[in-house]
């Protein structure tokens, strides 16, 4: 846990820019990490070209899960829905900018798991996300 954790993670945890719900929305999905009780829901709106125009998350959890959800929402706005397919564990770790042990990794990847499971079905996501 370095200064980066302090500043970026805690900042996004305390003051998330993309926390909320969208009604109506074009897409909504939620899931939880039963081991720690973290719960995340993601709502999206897309335009006619399937470009993500709005993305928000809601739910509760630790600083890592909440901050990574906020950063993930920020990063997908303006991108084609298809591009989410290519996002992996590394994408999230790059957004966070820190290394994480296996336990905290699950916290960090929860929002991406929710997003991908919602878009493509739980059977179509990578194993490393399924393990969460």
């Amino acid at each position, binding site marked *: 846990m370095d200064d980066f954790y302090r500043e970026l993670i805690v900042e996004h*945890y305390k003051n998330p820019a993309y926390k909320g719900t969208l009604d109506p929305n074009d897409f909504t999905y939620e899931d939880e990490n039963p081991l720690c009780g*973290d719960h995340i829901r993601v709502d999206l709106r897309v335009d006619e070209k399937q470009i993500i125009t709005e993305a928000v998350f809601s739910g509760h*959890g630790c*600083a*890592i899960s909440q901050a990574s959800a906020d950063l993930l929402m920020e990063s997908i706005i303006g991108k084609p829905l298809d591009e989410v397919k290519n996002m992996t564990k590394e994408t999230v770790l790059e957004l966070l900018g820190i290394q994480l042990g296996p*336990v905290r990794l699950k916290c960090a990847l929860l929002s991406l798991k929710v997003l991908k499971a919602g878009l493509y079905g739980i059977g179509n996501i990578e194993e490393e996300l399924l393990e969460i």
Partner: protein
Amino acid sequence: MNLDINKIKTDFPILNREVRPGTRLVYLDSTATAQKPGIVIDSMKQYYETNNANIHRGIHQLAEEATAMYESARQKIAIFIHARSTKEIVFTRNATESINLVAQTWGRKFLQAGDLIILTEMEHHSNLVPWQMLAEEKNLELDFIPVTENGELDLDTYDLLLEKKPKLVAFTHMSNVLGTINPAKEMIEKAHNAGALVLVDGAQSVPHFSVDVTDLNADFYVFSAHKMVGPTGIGVLYGKEKLLAEMPPFLGGGDMIKKVLLRSFKPNDLPHKFEAGTPAIAEAIGFGKAIDYLSAIGMENIANHEKKITQYALQKLKDVENLKVFCPNVTERGGVISFELGFVHPHDVAQVLDHYGIAVRAGHHCAMPLHEKFGLPATSRASFYLYNDYEDVDLLVIGLQHVNEMFA
């Protein structure tokens, strides 16, 4: 007698390490697993270097030495918990396996559809799931002694549940989340009066205070070595000889048999009937050393020390803003304190404390139903053992104040 904690700390090599440069380890997670003194580690190394052989049927010198060492560990355990005989001490992998053994042998043979098992709301998953599995297989009923707001078992409800004539009562001697020490002797007597047998989960009690299974009159009593400064991979099922004798074997294989034909076998005598295959020999020897170590210090002294540290911690934690101890007023409690810190997630508490070298646990501590009952997804938990001192508590308090600053 006051423990010489500085001396004790030097007995445990790991407590000398720095978690990272300049940060010494403050280990407050002994409820999950205890650290090991050098003499336990050395005894296992020495066994492998000088005595290693498979036990029981070997005729050569090494086999005889290994067998004697393994069986002497069993003897030490029998004395330590005041069992009547070594026939009542079955080596298993851990307390969890001991409970599964009873469920799968005694439970399968003697329980029938509609029979009732009473458990409690404060059980570790290891004393819930084996009974859930058995209940599903045999259509048994499960009922639960509730936990009061104060964190203790509701014994009035227990009396009512006993009127339903359960076949078995299984409960923890000490909660791994709340630290509550349950009145085992009284509960066992009541169960016996109602015609039930009793299994006690002693995973948190045997390491921390003196336990006399004969005086308690427990039918089954289970615990793990690794929580009592011994190695992982070995635990104990204590069972009354008469009960163990009536139970069918658990796992089949070598060592648990007296005679094998192509289509049948005759099981071995107690306790070997329940020990199929090559057991954890080095671990048994290390376990024996752990018992020597704890006995030399004295379980009374250890219990008193932990009581003082826990009272000190409960007092000092009052200085931490936003901190709420999970059931602070438990009357009889061991060295376990679970808590919430405002809205800070327990994972974040543990992560920031880790930065200062302080090891605590965060999560549901394998007691999801208990957390659910109190509406908590997770808590942070600090637990104490003979090697913890007041300074460890002070460092925890400072660490928690840092967490507060960071998330304020």
